């Protein structure tokens, strides 16, 4: 009995001896992001190894704001992410509902087309999207350009189809017999029952939009319509603001998502893993 518990203890020590240092290495970039953002401009490149935060965050942020109007870019990012998420959740829910609830001829074709794009590299569509929005429609630097083309995703339909198909169809049929309109069955009965899935989907879509880089970089380069990641990207490698100021921007981009992750971890992990486990 004693040998068994000794072995268990040894195993436990070994586990932490491997995982602990690795976890520290993994936390290091995020920790240093926070530390750098609080350092005086000349502190980052001082000869000493400095691993603890200083107190210059506010000054660094003011320098960033003065040079780039960073708050405006954050505002653009928030609006785009919120509107994009709301619209995309709505569209994909309706589509998922249609695929579960109704039988129609071209259903297999629609389903195959939607899921056929699940693993399609984005590069295959981004060039025509750019030609269409920027050149043909002349809509660069508009809310439309930032929000509408990224609306489509097949993951949302996959999630919602899954959620709706696990609900009892008799419930919807009963409502129908009562004379409830299909639209109301969808909004009043089905959608409220799908809340956990909707939450997971919304978080994933918001995160994707918040961090989206390539499309906004291509389509919105004017100061007033730049998203925060694009604005931050333009500062890397040029000497417009100090590295400490760039780090305040990185912190402002990252911290909200870290908080979302901490407080809504359950939905978040459900969203990431839902595609995999079915």
């Amino acid at each position, binding site marked *: 009995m004693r040998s068994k518990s000794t072995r268990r203890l040894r195993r436990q020590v070994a586990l932490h001896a491997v995982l602990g240092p690795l976890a520290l290495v993994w936390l290091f970039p995020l920790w240093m992001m926070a530390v750098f953002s609080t350092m005086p401009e000349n502190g980052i490149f001082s000869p000493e190894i400095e691993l603890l935060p200083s107190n210059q965050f506010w000054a660094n942020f003011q320098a960033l704001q003065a040079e780039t109007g960073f708050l405006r870019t954050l505002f653009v990012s928030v609006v785009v992410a919120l509107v994009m998420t709301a619209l995309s959740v709505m569209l994909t829910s309706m589509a998922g509902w249609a695929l579960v609830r109704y039988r129609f001829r071209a259903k297999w074709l629609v389903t195959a087309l939607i899921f056929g794009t699940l693993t399609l590299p984005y590069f295959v569509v981004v060039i025509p999207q750019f030609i269409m929005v920027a050149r043909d429609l002349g809509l660069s630097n508009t809310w439309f350009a930032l929000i509408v083309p990224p609306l489509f995703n097949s993951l949302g339909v996959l999630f919602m189809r899954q959620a709706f198909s696990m609900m009892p169809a008799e419930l919807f049929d009963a409502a129908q017999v009562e004379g409830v309109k299909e639209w109301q069955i969808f909004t009043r009965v089905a959608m409220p029952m799908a809340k956990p899935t909707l939450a997971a989907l919304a978080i994933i879509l918001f995160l994707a939009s918040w961090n989206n880089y390539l499309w906004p970089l291509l389509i919105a380069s004017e100061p007033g319509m730049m998203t925060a990641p694009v604005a931050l990207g333009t500062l890397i490698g040029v000497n417009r603001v100090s590295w400490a100021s760039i780090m305040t921007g990185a912190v402002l981009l990252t911290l909200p998502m870290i908080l979302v992750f901490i407080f809504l971890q359950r939905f978040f992990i459900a969203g990431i893993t839902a595609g995999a*486990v079915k």
Partner: protein
Amino acid sequence: MRNRTATAYGFLAPYLLIFASFWIWPIVYSFWLSFLATRQLPWTFRPEMTWGRLPQDPAFLNALKNTLLILVVQVPVMVALATVLAVLLNSQLLRARGIMRFAFFAPVVVGEVAYAAVFRLMFTADRGIVNKLLEGAGLPTVDWFSNPTAAMALIIMAVTWRWAGYNAMIILSGLQSIPDDVYEAATLDRVSPFRQFLFITLPLLRPVILFCVVLSVIGTMQLFAEPFLITNRGGPGGATETLGLFLYRQGFTVLNFGYASAVAYTIAGLAVLISLLNIWLARDRA
């Protein structure tokens, strides 16, 4: 049950409208574009200027070589690491589980630009924190941005940092769907934990791991922001130029849409091919 088709399309219409205009049409259009010479107007059908040019373009071949190199090193290392992480994070013996999981899962929410900025700053050759730490430990410092091998290693490290936890999260959810009694039986039969991992866990995880490999292959084939921002446009001297970056240059700097479309379809074709190869290699041989 009358008029179901109309109702169905009513629900589908807004989604299909976006789908058709921003995905289906572009998929078809960029395929057509990939045969057009687009350097001057009018665009003409000259596949020798796009598909024909690809195998002779040293810049493309360099980007292809770099992308495949990153793929061959980074994907296996990362998926193996993610598998080990998932198993360790799932252990009953683990203390401080919340912090441990946070350490590896947090990078999943960090945007490309933010993490690229931090990595570029940390690895600065002259008095960057990584070199300072190396020096402090009595090790030689590395010129991360002017040494081609080091720059490549940096890109691989950065991508691994960003995505290992994501894959571990997926594998962990796969682990948790394995019933406990399988392990209980094995433990009663005095099968060591390592052999349990080898002969129970790994075979049962095969579909999930394969899913991660396919996702990672598709992601790596499209690598763009990291070489764009961390190694400053694929530097030094194109040593970290990837297909994604090459496409960006051709499509959106030179505005050669036809050539860029051929690159896009090359990326898609290779991603499909490599994924199928993996699926074939991992097929059930029973």
